[in-house]
């Protein structure tokens, strides 16, 4: 990190200018932009680990039976892939990285409301992730429960390091909660004069809605995983029917957090898309109010649909009825967003720069993720595809094809701002194309496999499922190739690329008005804003 800042100290490097404290100038910095980059490095490191584990999973599944690892190792692989991708990557990725980098500038603030709390959140993230790594070693070996830690398997059957992994999730939850508290306070208290609620960018709106989920749902996750630990250590029997407990209660608790968590993952991504599309269409966003309100609607209604993960669990038919109905209702605000994004392009002047390409891929892939969500929101059809590869395909379309693609778009959109340098757009376009092909080849076959009845979390499968599994594995190779190309090109450009200028995309939001890289505290003078954020008139 010190190297990055010293590599080109000739021009004004803003917040990247070496502080003279070396590494300490970073890991103890309270500058929201430095903290954002700290998250960037930490989270991308875990993302690469997660990708590698996923790559191994696909390699194992290229043929039935044992291919490269045994069943126990395979179970550990998908558990770790899930834990890392969910808790260490996709939940924090956009708020912690891009939210920290961009949001305070977008509202005309010098920093977040609680800069030291912000730094603490990063440290908690690091400690939690170290605990997650510690669960790999010693004791009974890496956890093999799946990221959902379902009881009674996690509490009574497995002898692996579930206690350590659950404790790690407990700690990581606090990082998320504290970031949420920080962002809500920042958005309420630190808006520059003239930045009314309806002059907020839609990215900030999305972060605001997300932050509420983080602080309301986060504590439930903490309680749930704490109960797993208590159950394992003291045998309290909370989830054991022989001791008056109930395994279904665990599932309710788990999903009361983990379903809203899905919106923690996707809402900020939607916010990125809402900022990218007007910029590259040279048009104000269509339906600003509808998009802003739909973020809040998703955050609210999304908190009431958790039991759609449990249609086959044995819960009552009444519960199935209610949760299926609510699930269909939460689909509406997402659909409204998609329609408004497409409408924004109408009669625009569209340039297909890399951020826009990611936004377009997001819309198509999120659409597939959302529409397959209708199949599993419907009670009758969910019974067949629940816990099959259809689910795996569906949530990868939403989480990877949606949230992660939005994040990549956000990186290509905003990182030139924060490094002051531009990557090679031609290579970025190629990487995008390779990733789209690889991604869809990897996950679309899973939807078909699921409809054909192949259960998920299967180390071994019947030979009739092999052709599509081979296709999927080949897709994973293509996707990984694209990812490597994307990251290499992006970071080479950010370190050595040509000067990007203050506003390389001719975007109209506040962050593009200050110099690149932005100075410490962003604004010499707090700006007074009297325009709408997407003003292209």
């Amino acid at each position, binding site marked *: 990190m010190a190297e990055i800042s010293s590599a080109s100290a000739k021009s004004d490097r803003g917040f990247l200018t070496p502080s003279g404290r070396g590494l300490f100038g970073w890991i103890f910095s309270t500058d929201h932009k430095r903290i954002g980059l700290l998250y960037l490095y930490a989270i991308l490191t875990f993302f690469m680990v997660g990708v590698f584990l996923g790559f191994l999973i696909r390699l194992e599944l290229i043929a039935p039976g044992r291919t490269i690892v045994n069943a126990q190792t395979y179970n550990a692989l998908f558990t770790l892939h899930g834990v890392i991708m969910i808790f260490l990557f996709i939940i924090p990725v956009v708020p912690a990285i891009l939210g920290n980098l961009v949001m305070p500038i977008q509202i005309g603030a010098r920093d977040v409301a609680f800069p030291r709390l912000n730094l603490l959140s990063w440290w908690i993230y690091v400690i939690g992730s170290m605990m997650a790594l510690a669960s790999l070693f010693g004791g009974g070996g890496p956890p093999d429960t799946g990221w959902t830690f379902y009881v009674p398997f996690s509490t009574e059957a497995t002898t692996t390091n579930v206690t350590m992994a659950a404790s790690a999730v407990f700690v990581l939850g606090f990082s998320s909660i504290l970031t949420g508290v920080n962002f809500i306070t920042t958005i309420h208290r630190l808006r520059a004069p003239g930045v009314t609620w309806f002059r907020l960018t839609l990215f900030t709106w999305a972060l605001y809605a997300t932050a509420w989920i983080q602080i309301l749902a986060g504590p439930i996750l903490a309680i749930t995983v704490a109960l797993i630990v208590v159950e394992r250590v003291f045998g309290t029997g909370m989830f054991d029917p022989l001791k008056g407990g109930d395994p279904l209660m665990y599932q309710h608790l788990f999903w009361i957090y983990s379903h809203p968590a899905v919106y923690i993952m996707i809402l900020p991504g939607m916010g990125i898309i809402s900022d990218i599309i007007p910029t590259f269409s040279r048009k104000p966003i269509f339906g600003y109010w509808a998009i802003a309100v739909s973020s809040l609607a998703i955050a609210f209604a999304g908190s009431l649909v958790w039991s759609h993960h449990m249609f*086959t669990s044995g819960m009552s038919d009444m519960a199935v009825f209610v949760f299926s*109905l609510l699930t269909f209702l939460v689909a509406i605000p997402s659909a409204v967003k998609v329609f408004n994004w497409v409408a924004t392009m109408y009669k625009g002047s569209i*340039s297909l720069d890399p951020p826009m390409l990611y936004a377009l891929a997001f819309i198509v892939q999120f*659409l597939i993720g959302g529409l397959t969500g209708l199949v599993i929101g419907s009670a009758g*059809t969910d*019974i067949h595809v629940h816990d099959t590869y259809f689910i795996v395909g569906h949530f990868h379309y939403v989480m990877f094809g949606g949230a992660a693609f939005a994040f990549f778009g956000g990186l290509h959109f905003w990182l030139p701002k924060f490094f002051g340098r531009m990557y090679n757009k031609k290579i970025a376009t190629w990487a995008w194309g390779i990733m789209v092909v690889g991604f869809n080849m990897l996950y679309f076959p899973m939807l078909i496999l699921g409809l054909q009845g192949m259960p998920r979390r299967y180390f071994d499968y019947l030979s009739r499922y092999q052709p599509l599994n081979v296709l999927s594995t080949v897709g994973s190779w293509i996707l990984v190739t694209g990812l490597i190309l994307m990251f290499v090109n992006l970071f080479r450009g950010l370190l050595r690329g040509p000067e990007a200028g203050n506003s390389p995309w001719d975007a109209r939001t506040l962050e593009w008005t200050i110099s690149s890289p932005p100075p410490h505290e962003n604004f010499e003078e707090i700006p007074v804003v009297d325009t709408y954020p997407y003003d292209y008139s």
Partner: protein
Amino acid sequence: MNPQLITTTEAIDAVFFYILGISLLLFIGVTGTMVFFVVKYHRKRHPEPTSDVQKHLGLEITWTIVPTLIALSMFWYGWQGYIHLSTVPENAMEVDVTGRMWSWSFEYENGKTSDRLYVPVNTPVKVDIHSTDVLHSFYIPAFRVKKDAVPGMTTYVWFTAPDIGSYDIFCAEYCGVGHSSMITTVEVLTRDEFREWYEKEPAAESRGRDILSRNGCLGCHSLDGSSGIGPTFQGLYGSSRTVLIDGEEQTVTADEDYLRRSILEPNAELVKGFQPMMPSYEGKIPEEDMEAIISFMQEISEEEGLRGGPESAGQEETAKPEETAQPGEDEDSKEQEEEQKQEEDVDVEALLQEKGCTGCHSLDGTRMVGPTFKGLFGKETTILRNGEEITLTADADYIKRSIQQPQAEVVKGYPPVMPPSSDLSEEQMEAIVRFLEALK
């Protein structure tokens, strides 16, 4: 039976077609519009935007209301499908299924048990689902039914099979190392075939097979020589197997003691080439069942002519195939064992099978989920106790400890997946130890 009765498959597939059909139209509509805009309004062709319209209440209302109506229709149709799945026809035949790590066993109203679900064609069948340990999920893709098996709770599915044939049953809720091998089938028979099967008393010689079937052994171990999750039972008895004990290859003879060991402590002697995933059947198989299993194993091995010599003719007396036994340091004790086995030879092996030990512990030296039983007794074994490596001799005490508290001392190189078995009688324990001692 009402022939007009709509099957679960038909009911659910109609919902699939409705939802997927509309989804496809929506996908084409939205993506098509987007691509059209991108092409038509590309900056090359359209250098300046020609509209700055920012809102349109009518459009917002339309694309809120129309999707809401579509979504509600999907919800309602899906709910009707769900109701179909949860409304059992009154004349349905009832079968109980119990899931456990990692097999299914079915029990019919007349007490008949099986590891496959035999049902008559065109007859509604209600399956009551139980679990003895962790969550499982009973899933028949062909009939679009699935329901979790939850400890302490009885759940159900029902279906009508319209065609004769064999259909897969999967476990769909992750349940540990053997999850993907927790597979069996629905066998749909004609009404007459089913009645014949249902009413047939298990013949004496097929008792062993029934026990294997009921305990889920045949889910992993075939009887016809085909390779499965575990080694086939065909030709197993008396054969010489390469097993891994503490990661070391040893050759053992699959005699009665070995089989018993394999059932009770499946992971101790793993047949080479197999995964250590079989749970212990300690305390789950009564002695008489164990005997039946072992004599059944002998029979099928003899039938197949895989064992030549005078032993082919015998039963219990010939259970100890000396000619393939490895000369070991316990030759003497083995001979003593021989005598004791005159009475209980069959028992231990059957016990090991019935308790499922051999699902993970081979009797022939093959490495599976757990170490092979072959050559286990008296062997120098490196185990992990509280995370520390300790080398000890696998004596009688060790074997008993390993059965009762398998996780306390896990053999190095094996996953700690074996469930404890504390309900074996002292006699059974002793018999197992003797069996293992003889299985060199």
